[in-house]
């Protein structure tokens, strides 16, 4: 069951990625032009959150 849920989530996530910017027309909710700095911020924040010393 756990595997099925996990696979379903992975499928949903990859579908979401495949969907991203596949629609046309209108200004998007997530602007691709600002993606680089926004994803750099996300990656940096993730590294900081995981960068703490283990006790």
């Amino acid at each position: 069951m756990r595997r099925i849920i996990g696979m379903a989530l992975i499928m949903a996530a990859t579908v979401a990625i495949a969907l991203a910017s596949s629609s046309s027309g209108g200004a998007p909710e997530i602007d691709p032009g600002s993606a680089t700095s926004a994803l750099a911020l996300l990656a940096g924040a993730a590294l900081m959150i995981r960068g703490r010393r283990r006790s």
Partner: protein
Amino acid sequence: MIRRASLLGLLLILELLALSLWLDNASLGHAAGLAWLVGRWGAWTGRFVVVSAVFLVIFGYPKARNSLPSLSIPLREAPISWGFLAGHFCSVAAFAGLSVPLYRSPSGTPGNLATGAWLAVGALAVALAGLAFAPPKLWMEAARATGNAWVYASAAGLSACLLGVASQWMWAPAAHLTFLMVKTILRAFVSGVIADPATRTIGCRGFDVEIAATCSGLEGIGLILAFGVAWLWLFRREFRFPHALLLIPASVAAIFPINALRITALILIGAAGAPGVAMGGFHSQAGWIAFNAVAAAFALTAQRLPWVTVPGRAAAVPARATENPTAPYLAPFLTILIAAMISRAASSGFEWLYPLRFFAAAGVLWFYRWKYAPLDWRFGWNAAAIGALVFAMWIGLDRVWGGGANAGLASGLSGLSAPARAGWLALRTLAAVVTVPIAEELAFRGFLMRRLVSADFESVDWRRFTFVPVLISSVAFGVLHGDRWLAGTLAGVFYAAALHRRGRIGDAVAAHAVTNALLAAWVLASGNWGLW
């Protein structure tokens, strides 16, 4: 084995990202033959390849796990092939060169031969990168160890793409639900709301917007879903399942109404007399601000909520933020990124709030000042010479490739009073020469480059020169410079060279500061605002 594969994946992803920012398949819309095929199906093919590669890792890893030791030992003995790597970069350069006539052909009809050569050179670049990181024999053994996982991965990738196309029916109902939420929230703030459900047009006081399918909130849901699944998968040993899975619907439930709040705020800003800000900077940045906030909340909740973590396995949360060794290196740069998002969100063309970047970064650098005291901040004339060389290279590449004019900055400055203009330019120059070089060198050379060598990055000698980390950290640095990614990448390599010469962070910072100071002088003297 995993480290080598990760480095290869990271290199290809960064290059793909740089290319996707540079090339626009929409410009091939009116082409014919092979170029038309690239324009019509190129993006979907790219998505199929990326999704299939993810599934190949998921399906192939359990099958090949037992074979990993037998693959890892010969891989450790086989060094990275510099010849193939050089061939890869030559192919990437050729690919970029062939892209110019293909995507910017004045006639709009690139020939089949040119398009075929472009595709072949692209495939060659990928193949050479693969051969640089592992010899052909090991690739064959890895393919044998994963068995027919590639068949399942391709099928799953194709299914995901087909589902992606088929599930577009969700856009309209989601957009309608967002429309209803925006209407409800807006009525709590203002009277006289105009709302037309047929066209999903909503607004007040002479300012209205149409909630398009792309603004329905599904993009944010997709991103947070991808982030959440990746986070739970990466750190799965620390989480209690199925408890931790609840974080996924919780984050989706959070981001959807936040999108409605974003659109409401956009309408209120526009109705308050700033339609340019509403439809410009705010529209461009607010979605990313919302996504990053929810993603950070997800990661922090996952780490701090005992109910979802396995006791004793979660990364320890220190009593004080100053106990985090990564923070002094990354926090100043991340603060600049956050300040940039905020100041852009409040702008329309001209970033009047730019000084926020300077003061925010200066504050964080001051906060961690005692952490920087042990670092070697001395610098020599060689660093200044490297900085001047990078400046010359930057200007030269700008002449060859061309850059934007930044008309927004020019017109914004002309609209300011003389004292405000002088103050803005002074703080813009101070940021370029002081806070930006320190923050970026700490992040890219001080942290990322050494973190790619070892997880315990503080133990890595500053003089240690390892080619792949230098390359990856420089490409990452270059990608953040948008259209000038090539100049940014080369600058990163030069600053790394400045650092390695004597093992002093001060040399890298000085070189970077000299480049930015010369660029600032050039911009102020010539009025070429596009370089800022």
